[in-house]
């Protein structure tokens, strides 16, 4: 492939972006499919047998009316699905149509919305926007329940233009006022969407230059076909999958696919994942892992199968509280993931993994066995093995040297030529993995 790097290298890269990392076993399967074969499989989740996930979810007995269960359910899906891109796009739509249970206060409605995003994960944007606009959680979240004839509530009209389609600066305050009238009477009942005709304003309206007796469907149709929408979505998706600073040429390429495919997200995402820029040095380790990517990825790489109940809280402290995004703009992502305390949280998650979860690495149960099974006969080999596994060996030589000297010392820090006993080996192995997981490059996707 590109830059002299192997297929394995780019498939790892692909799965960090289009999924949540891979287990060694999954990686083997994807490598057999090759890069293009893997992209095809990821883009067509309906062709993948995911029954094992659905069966094991049934056994977990999640309560879909309790928000904490719902968070755990979603994390479980991210960790064990065979359709990782489907979950990754579900997370994208959740961040795009960012709805928080803090206000909706109805976990089952949040579940419904989440299932909607999953169903349309790689679907048509017109349909996605149309369904999101009628989604009960969304109607509660952006106050459309109170948007009535004669007394419009502008919240939904503003955000659908500013955050869901056009982006700021591409509409007028008048467009918002008129669009709000078009969405009057779009309400929710316990049974679902309800069009309240008596509260709908049937008068003439003009939105983005289109006049008529417009309703919400019309506004959705007007918005999806705007050039600004194509650029807005293309930019956001490139940032989500490839890098934080997309160039105008690439945005145009991807936006064109959106327009010519009539808003087909499968084609748009395919275009990004197969773009030469995605498979370039510029994209490699160019993004900061989101908390979801960091947490799920760590579990997968280290083959930890038992998920702790407080993972949602851990991710929240890292800055990503699933189903409770900070506001309707969703998570900013990129460098916004990083602050001193979210960084500390990442370090301490690494520590928790290596102290309490590490023994679950499936193939071995003791440090000695890991070392023996992998034929790690020296400190250098041990360090290289884990640097390769965890950070694609993307560290400066000075870091490798310091890790080697950490491993080649006893518990008091004195250099030794042989690890004195199994207890020391266990401490050093756990400490080594902890240290690698705190590296700057481990935070990169």
């Amino acid at each position, binding site marked *: 492939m590109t830059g002299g790097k192997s297929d394995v290298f780019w498939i790892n890269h692909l799965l960090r972006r289009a999924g949540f990392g891979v287990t060694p076993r999954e990686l083997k399967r994807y490598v057999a499919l090759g890069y293009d074969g893997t992209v095809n499989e990821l883009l067509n989740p309906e062709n993948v047998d995911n029954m094992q996930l659905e069966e094991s979810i049934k056994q977990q007995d999640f309560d879909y009316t309790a928000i904490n269960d719902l968070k755990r359910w979603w994390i479980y899906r991210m960790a064990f699905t065979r359709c990782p891109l489907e979950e990754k796009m579900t997370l994208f739509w959740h961040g795009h149509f960012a709805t928080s249970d803090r206000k909706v206060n109805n976990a089952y409605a949040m579940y419904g919305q989440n299932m909607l995003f999953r169903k349309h994960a790689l679907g048509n944007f017109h349909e996605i926007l149309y369904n999101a606009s009628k989604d009960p959680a969304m109607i509660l979240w952006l106050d459309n329940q109170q948007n009535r004839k004669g007394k419009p509530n502008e919240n939904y009209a503003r955000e659908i233009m500013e955050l869901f389609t056009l982006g700021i600066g591409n509409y007028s305050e008048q467009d918002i006022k008129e669009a709000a009238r078009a969405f009057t009477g779009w309400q929710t009942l316990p049974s679902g969407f309800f069009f309240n005709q008596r509260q709908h304003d049937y008068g003439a309206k003009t939105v983005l230059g289109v006049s008529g007796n417009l309703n919400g469907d019309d506004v959705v149709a007007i918005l999806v076909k705007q050039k600004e929408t194509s650029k807005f979505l293309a930019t956001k998706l490139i940032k989500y999958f490839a890098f934080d600073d997309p160039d105008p040429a690439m945005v145009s390429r991807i936006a064109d696919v959106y327009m010519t495919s009539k808003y087909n997200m499968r084609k748009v995402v395919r275009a990004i994942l197969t773009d030469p820029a995605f498979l370039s040095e510029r994209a490699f380790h160019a993004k900061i892992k989101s908390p979801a990517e960091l947490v799920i990825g760590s579990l997968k790489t280290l083959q930890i199968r038992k998920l702790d109940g407080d993972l949602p809280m851990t991710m929240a402290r890292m800055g990503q509280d699933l189903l409770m995004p900070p506001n309707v703009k969703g998570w900013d992502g990129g460098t916004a993931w990083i602050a001193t*305390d979210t960084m500390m949280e990442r370090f301490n998650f690494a520590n928790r993994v290596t102290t309490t979860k590490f023994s679950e690495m499936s193939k071995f149960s003791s440090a000695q066995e890991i070392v023996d099974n992998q034929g790690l006969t020296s400190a250098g080999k041990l360090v290289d093995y884990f640097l390769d596994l965890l950070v694609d060996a993307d560290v400066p030589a000075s870091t490798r040297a310091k890790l080697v000297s950490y491993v080649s010392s006893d518990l008091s*820090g004195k250099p030794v030529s042989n690890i004195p006993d199994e207890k020391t080996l266990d401490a050093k192995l756990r400490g080594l993995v902890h240290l690698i997981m705190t590296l700057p490059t481990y935070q990169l996707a």
Partner: protein
Amino acid sequence: MSISRRTFLQGLGLMSVYLSAPEALLLSAKAAEYAPRTAGKSKILVLVQMSGGNDGLNTVVPYNNGAYYQLRPTLAIEPDKVLPLDREIGLNPNMIGLHELFKNGKVAVVQGVGYPNPSRSHFRSIEIWQTAQPDKIVETGWLGRYLDCADCTKNGNIFAAVNVEPTLPKTLQSNKIMVPSVSNVFDFKFRTDPRYLQDRETQVRAFEDIYGTFQSKRPNAELLRNAGLEANKASDYLQKIVREYQSEIKYPDGSFGNGLKFISQMISGGVDSRIFTVNLDGFDTHTNQANGQNKLLKQFSEGVAAFYKDLERNNLQDDVVLFGFSEFGRRVVENNGRGTDHGTAAPVYVIGSKVKGGVYGEHPSMTALDDGDLKYKMDFRCVYATLLDRWMGADSREILGQRYEYIPFV
């Protein structure tokens, strides 16, 4: 001259090539000395961001204005309920603590604060307030630029400012330094395996060694390296402060009250910061406004009152000014859901023992509206300029790009 974050950091990175590891470590901040604050050491600014767009009209109520009662048939607050500031305006009845402070001359209310061509987008408008730049998008915040000018990082002080929220507001985005964010001090500690306590020191030293010299061409590696180094340096020190500086003053429950309490602990414990930021979120009251806003204003008022009392207890009240603001006020006429939509100008609050209390500026007309919204009377940058020059002793022209008129509240 300002240097970009990237070139600055690259400069640091390149330097470390020529240094051996122990020397390179000196580049990072020195462990802070632990000593309680002595009164009068410096002037401190505490920023309270009231996120979501606080409805100014139901916070500082024009209770003598007929139009207010006409346009707010269900939301208007009765004249006999408000806590009067003067003959025209009074505080929301839930702000008893703040009203007490006002009566003691410690609160300045500046009316009708805003900026030209107001944005009704939460995200753009808060960015305008945070960067003090309504005309274009810039990467640094107004207090970040203050930090750049003030050179607060000399002598290895990593606490030029502290944000007590999970994410750093753009207000503190600086070219030269990364301001630490510490939302939960109890989790803010570098942990290692409790079974191998003996190995802890070796491991922490390896971490610091690696971070001290880590070089990579990946675009975010330097940012991560700095965040990691600072996190580690700050944690021991802050743990100690919080242990030593307990307070008997009762703060309101929730992250806002906890944040103010933590700030007070840091100030009295001697953390050498001149700026602290905290957030109170939830003011986006499109529906059933009264219930939500009243609770938030109560939290605001009780939190501020407790914070002031706490400072007084340590005789530090003269050192601190607190400034409360929101990204915009709300539409004058209420909507159909007993709420209000996004609006424009609103009052801001400046609180402190050294503040000249009172009502400043003119209330915007309730009838001569701009497309249903209040017309601003005072540019928010006048407030910033006053705080920067007359409180912080800075040069606001360097930070805001031009001179702005002062408001005599300090």
